[in-house]
């Protein structure tokens, strides 16, 4: 009975798939007018050579604001879920006397290969992340992608260097504040247009010259804000996860 059901179901699914696939338009064909219109107007109107960024951060900037705040709220939710209860903290400090018995103790010392590779990677990722954020309007990429790349720099520092160095380059308060301020900056920039008498998130900043860094007005500034927000969000998420291990490492180093 079961075999019959699964065979009939699979056969039905296969038939539907073949029927659907045979009716597909030819590969690469595009019947909608919207894309064609954008392709011919975006460069002239907004000086943005990456039309995808022009759509995301200008023509449909409101949708991207929603996306940014989805990320913001998820990070806040994760931080809330994984927060340390006051009592537990007290316990772990008492237990720290017997270091050997702590869960996840005695991490092997970082190998030289990881250290060298991590240090070499930091400068490269910072530069690449900044490039990705600042050139979102001219080439593929932008704040979201560049922000995640930027966030991997503190992670490689955490893996390669001392825990104290990680805390120095990414102090918790600074990360938290810059994430929140960058997220708010998106709305503020949108409201600036309203104050000037235009609609919310209208491109009001000077457009500049196409194919140059800082061109396309709002698209550049919004990418910058989103980049900082995403980088901050990811570092915050990481530090929430690794907080206990970080504290353990800090205690060991201070001995």
């Amino acid at each position: 009975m079961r075999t019959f059901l699964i065979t009939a179901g699979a056969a039905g699914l296969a038939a539907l798939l073949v029927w659907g696939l045979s009716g597909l338009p030819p590969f690469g064909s595009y019947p909608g007018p919207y894309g064609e219109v954008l392709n011919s107007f975006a460069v002239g109107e907004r000086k943005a050579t990456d039309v995808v960024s022009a759509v995301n951060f200008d023509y449909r900037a409101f949708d991207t604001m929603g996306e940014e705040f989805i990320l913001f709220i998820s990070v806040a939710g994760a931080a809330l879920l994984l927060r340390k209860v006051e009592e537990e903290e007290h316990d772990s400090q008492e237990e720290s006397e017997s270091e050997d018995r702590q869960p996840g103790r005695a991490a092997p010392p970082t190998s030289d290969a990881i250290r060298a590779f991590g240090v070499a990677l930091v400068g490269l990722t910072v530069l690449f992340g900044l490039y990705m954020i600042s050139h979102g309007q001219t080439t593929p990429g932008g704040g979201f992608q560049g922000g995640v790349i930027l966030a991997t720099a503190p992670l490689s520092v955490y893996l390669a260097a001392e825990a104290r160095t990680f805390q120095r380059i990414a102090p918790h308060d600074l990360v938290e504040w810059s994430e929140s301020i960058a997220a708010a900056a998106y709305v503020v920039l949108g409201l600036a247009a309203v104050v000037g008498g235009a609609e919310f998130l209208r491109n009001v900043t000077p457009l500049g010259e196409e194919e140059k860094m800082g061109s396309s007005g709002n698209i550049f500034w919004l990418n910058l804000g989103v980049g900082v927000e995403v980088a901050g969000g990811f570092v915050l998420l990481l530090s929430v996860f690794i907080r206990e291990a970080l504290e353990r490492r800090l205690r060991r180093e201070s001995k």
Partner: protein
Amino acid sequence: MGWLQTGVFLLVAASALGVVRTKDPLAQSVAVSFYGLVLALLFFLHQAPDVALSQIVVGAVALPLMILLALSKIHAQDEERKQAGEEERK
């Protein structure tokens, strides 16, 4: 579709099957990272470099990283609980 796109398409299907068939969550996080990378390649070959970049950073890096961190957190909690149980028995 060219032969390259077809090949990568089949690779996506194969690695997706690999992710589903992997039983151990730790190995699965590596498998899903590879799947994300291949999927990004597919996006790139279909002229969507923006989406491919997002796919690399989210699908191949951020998602497996979050899975790994969550696994290590669960592992640490399990050990803590085990220790507490042993202490109670003493």
